[in-house]
C-alpha cells in the first residue's frame, strides 16, 4: 500500500487548506479558556443540597478507610501547613489553585482554618470545570473539635466513647475526658504507626504536580 501523495494538484490543495486554517487561527482567539460561563443555578442547588462539603467525621472515615482515591488540599498559608496539617494533605495556596493542573474527574477535598478560604477555593475550582470538589465543613477548627479533640456527648455510651477515642488517637489526638497519661501508650503508638503508614502511602500514590 503506497500512501505517498503523487498528485501535485492534491498537494497544492492540502497546502492551501493548511495555510487557510493557519490564517483564520489568527482571528479565532486563544483556545485556552481563562474565562468561563458558570451555571449559577446548578452551583446554588449543590450548595442548598449540602453536596458541596463533607463533615470532619466523614473526612476522618475517608482517610482511615480509603475506599476511593481523593486528594486532600490545605489552602491555608505554608507556615500554618508546616505547623500542622491533616494527614495526607497537600498544600496549595489560592493563586496556585487557579492554574495547577487537576484531572477533571479527580476528587478534591479542600480545607482552610475556618472554612471561608476553602469555600472560595471550591468556587474557583468549580469555575474551572472540576466536578468532584468538596470542602471540609467548619475547616480545621471543626476538625479539631470533632475529630482530634472531641468532647463526648452527654450520656454517650462507653462504645461510642471508645470509637471517638480510637479515631482521635489515630490522628494523634484524644478524647477530652481521656487525656493521654503517657505519649507512649501502646494505643497511641499503634495509631501513630497507622498514621505514618497512611502518610507514606499518600506520598507514594500522589500525582506529581
Amino acid at each position, binding site marked *: 500500500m503506497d*500512501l505517498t501523495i503523487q498528485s501535485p494538484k492534491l498537494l497544492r490543495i492540502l497546502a492551501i487548506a493548511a495555510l487557510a*486554517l*493557519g490564517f483564520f*487561527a489568527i482571528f479565532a482567539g*486563544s483556545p485556552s479558556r481563562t474565562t468561563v460561563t458558570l451555571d449559577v443555578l446548578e452551583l446554588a442547588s449543590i450548595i442548598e443540597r449540602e453536596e458541596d462539603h463533607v463533615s470532619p467525621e466523614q473526612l476522618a472515615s475517608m482517610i482511615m478507610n480509603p475506599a476511593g482515591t481523593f486528594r486532600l488540599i490545605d489552602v491555608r498559608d505554608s507556615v500554618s501547613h508546616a505547623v500542622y496539617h491533616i494527614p495526607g494533605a497537600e498544600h496549595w495556596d489560592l493563586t496556585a489553585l487557579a492554574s495547577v493542573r487537576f*484531572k*477533571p474527574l479527580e476528587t478534591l477535598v479542600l480545607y482552610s482554618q475556618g472554612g471561608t478560604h476553602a469555600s472560595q477555593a471550591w468556587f474557583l475550582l468549580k469555575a474551572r470545570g472540576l466536578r468532584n470538589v468538596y470542602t471540609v465543613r467548619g475547616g480545621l477548627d471543626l476538625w479539631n473539635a470533632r475529630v482530634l479533640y472531641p468532647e463526648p456527648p452527654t450520656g454517650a455510651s462507653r462504645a461510642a466513647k471508645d470509637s471517638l477515642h480510637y479515631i482521635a488517637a489515630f490522628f494523634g489526638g484524644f478524647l477530652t475526658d481521656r487525656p493521654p497519661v503517657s505519649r507512649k501508650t501502646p494505643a497511641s503508638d499503634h495509631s501513630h504507626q497507622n498514621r505514618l503508614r497512611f502518610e507514606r502511602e499518600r506520598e507514594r500514590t500522589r500525582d506529581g504536580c
Partner: protein
Amino acid sequence: MNAPFYEYGFFGDNFSLVVALITGIGFGFFLERAGFGSGRKLAAQFYLTDMTVFKVMFTAIVTAMLGLFWLSWLGLVDYALVSVPPTYLVPQLVGGIIFGTGFVMGGYCPGTSCVASSTGKLDGGVNLVGMIAGILLFGEAFSLLESFYNSSSMGAFTLPQVLGLSEGLTMFLIVVSAVGGFMAAERIEARYRNGSDNPIA
C-alpha cells in the same frame, strides 16, 4: 465527550497501555510506509538528496498543531490539559547532539530502528540493540548523571509564550514556514540528486 480522554478519566492507567500499544503500532506503520524503515533513505536526509524525513516530520507537526488548535476551539479538546514537557536546556542540547550523532552514524533513530527490525533489516536490529544498551547504561549511570539531567530547568513553556505572540499568529507563521520549507526541499532534492558528489547514490 472531551479529550484528553485519559485526563478526563474515560480510561485508567492499564487501558492507557493498550492505547499506547495501538498508537505505537499505528506510528510504526506510517513510519514504515513513509519509507523510514530504510537506513539509506533516512541517512539521505543528512546529504540533502532525499528530504522525506523533513517533509514527513514537518507535516506531522503542522497537522497536529492545526488539529489541536481547531479541536480545542470547537470545545472537543481541553487545550489546558495537554501535557507540555518541561525544558532542561543544556542536558537536552547534549542529548540532541548524542541523538543526532547516533542517527547519522547508524542511519536510524529509535523509532525507525524498531520499524526496520520489524521488517527484518539487520542494520535496524543492530541499532535496536544499541538503543537498548544505551537505555540500560543510562539507567545504571543515572545517579552520576542526575544533577546534570535536572540542570538548567526552564519549566514548561510553549512557542507563543517565548515569542510573545498569539497562538493563532504563531501557528500561521509555522504553516507558512512549512509550506516554504517544502518548496525549498523539492528544489534542494532536485539539485543534489543531479549532483556528482552524491555519496549514497
